[in-house]
């Protein structure tokens, strides 16, 4: 199959899969889980083929209906789009993990819709990262956001509905901002194709261009939950079902960041504005996010709440790296987009397995769980070490590169903030590990709990292993993304 056909099918396959899920699943929804799993396996295979292709020949495009841009919709697969692989991997594992979860927690009639929403959400993200058209980007963003709101509320509990509502309000405002900016850019340039906009923007008026970039930044930062726009995140991520939390925290917030990268690609190329003051604001907000996220996490009793706040810190890392706009910094940030997805999914799915078995979610109640669920807790511990950034785990790379980027950009103080922010994060992960292994159980029955079922354990262990592998083989993602970052930053240097 030619590469362009593959590129189209990477969106069409999960989309069709999602639409067909309620039909295949039937009234009991029994078949819908395996069906979704199969769909994601096929999608993963396509994504893998695409990545091999992009590594060999560089970025390539597909034109929908044969209409060339700027008239038709362009799908463009570049190195940043390779996050499709992470989306597929995490999606597949989250669906596998959901088998037992859905059976136990969801009303039977909702099971098939749960998988439909999950597939739609993944489709939205895949579309978001592979599209080359700005309006198309917005459409996919809405697909993933709307399915995201519904997924948070899927359990039907009152608190879940409240959290979903809060998420919906914030999300809707941010979508509005993005749409507004897209309208501005269309008015300025008469085009919706991103590469085309970048070319035409060069001679555009400064003020509307500035307004557009501001609206886009704020819109995407809400999606990415950067401090102080993070308030929707902890509730939504903690209350959602664990596999959904993994997808939301690992992937959905990242779409905000990938959106930001697209904005940079447009504006750096156009050279219409000097973004350095915006970047400085982002670096500061990133630094504050790191510290505030860690600070709030320390006081959480609920294990998933803690993980949710930790996401805010990690988004801070990534934003800081992007804002530094130095080669090391941006490489570190983009690689951490991938790595954090793996790490956070390990943690959320691990926590989910523990909650599934014990019914407890407070740290105090979970004391001693390390003795009865040794494999799950070992995986969580690897995730914890990884997110703190110990070498040679996946989390270390980002810390190293972003700190180098800070020194490279002439702001070593942010390297300082980053390294010491990480210590803050260590504090609450140590608390978690202490709870698992070193403290006497409050509930004696916790020692009688069985290890997680296989369909939950396997995804968690695969992800934990990847946390280590991606650290040891860190040079592979880095040398993969490097050309894209150099291309993106080239207009700045020249």
């Amino acid at each position: 199959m030619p590469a362009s056909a593959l590129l189209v099918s990477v969106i069409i396959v999960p989309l069709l899969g999602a639409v067909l899920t309620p039909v295949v699943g039937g009234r009991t929804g029994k078949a819908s889980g395996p069906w979704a799993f199969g769909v994601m396996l096929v999608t993963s295979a396509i994504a893998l083929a695409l990545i091999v292709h992009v590594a060999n020949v560089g970025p390539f495009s597909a034109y929908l209906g044969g209409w060339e841009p700027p008239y038709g919709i362009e799908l463009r697969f570049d190195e940043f789009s390779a996050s499709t692989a992470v989306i597929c991997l995490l999606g597949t594992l989250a669906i596998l993990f959901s088998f037992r979860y859905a059976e136990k927690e969801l009303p039977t009639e909702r099971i098939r819709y749960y998988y439909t929403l999950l597939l739609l959400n993944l489709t939205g993200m895949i579309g978001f990262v592979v599209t080359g058209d700005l309006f198309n980007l917005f459409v996919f963003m809405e697909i993933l956001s709307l399915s995201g709101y519904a997924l948070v509320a899927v359990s039907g509990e009152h608190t879940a509905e409240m959290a979903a509502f809060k998420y919906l309000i914030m999300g809707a405002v941010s979508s509005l901002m993005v749409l507004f900016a897209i309208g501005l850019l269309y008015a300025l340039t008469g085009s919706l194709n991103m590469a085309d906009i970048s070319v035409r923007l060069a001679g555009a008026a400064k003020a509307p261009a500035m307004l557009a970039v501001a609206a886009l930044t704020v819109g995407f930062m809400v999606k990415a939950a950067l401090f102080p726009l993070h308030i929707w995140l902890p509730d939504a991520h903690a209350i959602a079902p664990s596999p959904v939390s993994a997808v939301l925290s690992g992937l959905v917030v990242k779409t905000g960041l990938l959106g930001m990268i697209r904005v940079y690609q447009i504006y750096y190329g156009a050279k219409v504005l000097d973004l350095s003051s915006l970047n400085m604001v982002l670096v500061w907000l990133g630094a504050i996010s790191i510290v505030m996220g860690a600070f709030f996490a320390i006081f959480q009793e609920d294990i998933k709440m803690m993980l949710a706040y930790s996401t805010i810190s990690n988004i801070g890392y990534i934003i800081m790296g992007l804002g530094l706009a130095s080669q090391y910094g941006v490489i570190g940030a983009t690689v951490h987009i991938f790595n954090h997805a793996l790490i956070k999914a390990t943690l959320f799915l691990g926590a989910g397995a523990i909650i599934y078995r014990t019914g407890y979610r407070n740290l105090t109640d979970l004391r001693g769980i390390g003795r009865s669920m040794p494999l799950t807790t070992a995986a969580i511990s690897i995730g914890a070490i990884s997110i703190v950034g110990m070498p040679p785990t996946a989390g270390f790379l980002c810390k190293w590169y972003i700190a180098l980027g800070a020194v490279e950009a002439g702001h070593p103080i942010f390297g300082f903030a980053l390294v010491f922010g990480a210590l803050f994060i260590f504090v609450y992960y140590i608390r978690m590990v202490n709870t698992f292994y070193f403290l006497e159980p409050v509930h004696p029955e916790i020692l009688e709990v069985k290890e997680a079922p296989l369909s939950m354990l396997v995804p968690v262990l695969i992800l934990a292993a990847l946390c280590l592998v991606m650290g040891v083989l860190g040079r592979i993602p880095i040398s993969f993304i490097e050309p894209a970052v150099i291309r993106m930053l080239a207009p700045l240097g020249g």
Partner: protein
Amino acid sequence: MEVVDIRPILAPVLSFACAGLVFFMGKNTFWRAFWSLSAAATKLIVVFSMLPGTLRGTVYVFKLLDFTPGIGLGFRADALGMFFAIVSSTLWLITTVYAIGYMKGEHAQVRFFGFFALCVSATVGIAFAENLLTLFLFYETLTICTYPLVIHEETPEAMKAGRKYLTYTLLGGAFVLLGSVMTYSMAGTLTLSKPGILSLSSGVTALSWLFAALVIGFGVKAAIMPLHGWLPSAMVAPTPVSALLHAVAVVKAGAFGLLRVFYNVFGVAVLREMPIVDWLAYLAVFTILAGSFIAIFQDNFKRRLAYSTISQLSYIVLGATLLTPFGATAAIAHIANQAFAKITMFFVAGSVQRTTGKTQIHELAGIGYRMPWTMAAFTVAALSFVGMPLFAGFVSKWYLSLGAFEAGKPWFAVVMVASSLLNAAYWLPVVYLAYFKAPPGTVLRIEEAHPLLLWPTLICAAYVIMLGLTTQVPGLPFSLAQAAVRFVFGM
């Protein structure tokens, strides 16, 4: 001459594998002991097999992989690294034997011996690290693996000490990471295979900041005042762990890291131009004297040992800051000299506690009659600290004083004398108490420690005498230290 050889990595990896087996088969007492000893012994054998080559001037290197382009895991067994590896692996074998005797009947032994063995691999990884990043990796691993040992008792007091320990050491680790980042951006490399990778062209101010970051980072574990706070609190750990923390692994990892910073990151030529080094020397002098003063007033045996450790470690720092060959010789040799003497004392403290239940110094009256061999070993170690000729401590003090004169700073030799007096003031009364003050009315009979506790103590005491007598102990060549010094000073 550099030779690619798998042994520098084999040493940590083999003991790592054995540690894994302790976790898997540790429920059974025999297998736990077997794999713990195997971890220590295999490491010892691998390290010693490299010794003849190192003495001939061969450097074994093994580059494992790059985990980021340009920087990766690399292992390199040079003279300085070999010296530290030999000291730590010799002591580790002895300590493991002691720990098996000491920990009988304790809870959570699988965890204890598992992490104990993990520390083995981390320490040798530090010794053989080819670059700062690898060093940092094992430095942090050591921190994490010692934490379960520090909180072994799981009492609130132990948990508190564990928290304090982690706070200090992780902060230190963060500084090391920060320093590594700055080094990489200044020098473009992190290798530790050269006598200095930085140059004065980076500017003395920037270099001083970097120096401060790295010294704070490694100084936490080397317990330079005011970064020493974790060390006395960590005394709640079981005695073999204290021995391990204080004599072999943790503090020495800090001291060794400092030596690497001095000799392989900055290089002597660059440091001579930096006034900040003198300030570190003054801090070291302060630590030597203040540590001893505080030690005098400690009645708890292990706390007195802790402050003595703090004081002794700064000998290494002071020796390094002199930036002369004799000073460097003293700094490197003191790693071994302090280690053997201090571990002897810890073994004694542990044996006394296990045999008689006594933990305070004032309770030790007449203990020399009950435990003559143990207290003989203690006396040897005490005399070494005082700096009597024929004992290991003398060698360090001699070279350190020579170095002070060589550097044109004779007042540091005066500090050595003062420190000797202070050491005498807090160790000799214990000897006096043990032998000359039998409590009246009690029948004294010999009641020695268990052989598994006694023999390691005696072997370490024997090492202290050997190191002092000849400096050429079989298997622990002084010439390694000299070779390292020749490399550093380009002689």
